[in-house]
């Protein structure tokens, strides 16, 4: 019973790890940073509107560039 529960919990944890982090931990970190910045800048008007989409765009471009197969 305990072993089955532990196996289930491990599988549940593995699912969420693969789902959220997987092989692109940098995108998970960016997501957390975006949440932090959103709270930090929520009192301002224009800055978050530019900074948050800009940061997300930059992050995904850098991540994709890093994921390229190197030209030989």
């Amino acid at each position: 019973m305990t072993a089955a529960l532990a196996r289930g919990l491990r599988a549940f944890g593995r699912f969420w790890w693969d789902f959220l982090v997987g092989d692109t931990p940098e995108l998970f970190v960016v997501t957390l940073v975006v949440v932090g910045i959103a709270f930090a800048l929520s009192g301002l008007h224009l800055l978050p509107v530019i900074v948050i989409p800009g940061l997300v765009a930059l992050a995904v471009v850098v991540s994709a560039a890093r994921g390229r197969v190197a030209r030989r």
Partner: protein
Amino acid sequence: MRSSEWVLVLAVFGASAVEMVEALTIVVAAGSTRGWRSALQGAATAVAVLAALVLVVGVPLIRYVPIDALRVIVGALLLSLGLNWLRKAWLRASGHKAAHDEDRIYAETVAELAADGPVRPQRDAVGFAVAFKGVFLEGTEVVLIVISLGASQGRLGLASLAAAAAAVVVFGVGALVARQLSSVPENTIKLTVGVMLTSFGIFWVGEGAGIHWPGSDAFLLALVAVFAVLSAAVIPWLRRSSPAVAGVAP
């Protein structure tokens, strides 16, 4: 319907369609090798379990979690998922990652199932299990998207309907042509959904944190436009350094 609801319907429909095309490949492989009855029973059971998951997880989320906290959490989930879909679609479109090949998956699944002992005429456990697993695993991501998008806007029913409609369309077309749908432009749909999920993620994280987006819901469309334009610019840029272009096999 408001613009955010249209985007919700399109995002859920697209995500569900992509995942259901992948599930259909496995169901058709199971049906043609182990018998249609068991394969369809397996697929139907998986759909029922997924629908129950939406009810069991989604409804309490809407009722008991404060809406701003819910929006930040599901926004972060959608952003994480959307960025991964977007990155993968860019790499596939530019030749840095192999495209999802339904024909190859079908052939491999058929070969595995054919080697898996004799078929039982009444109920074939192997066919049932493979179809169940295929639909359930592909559908889990759809359930997360349905719950996230539906709960954050209080439109769980609308999101579930969009997912169900996609499943009906994909399985309906699959049944008509009696094969897996290898000609569906899967990466284009994945790219579109990636753009939408990323936009929704940014939008809901901001809303939940108390940011007032200019134009309210209409800002979501602006985000979709920004990431669509970014995709149109980045894919050719990535393609320039693609191994295929450079003459090296991917």
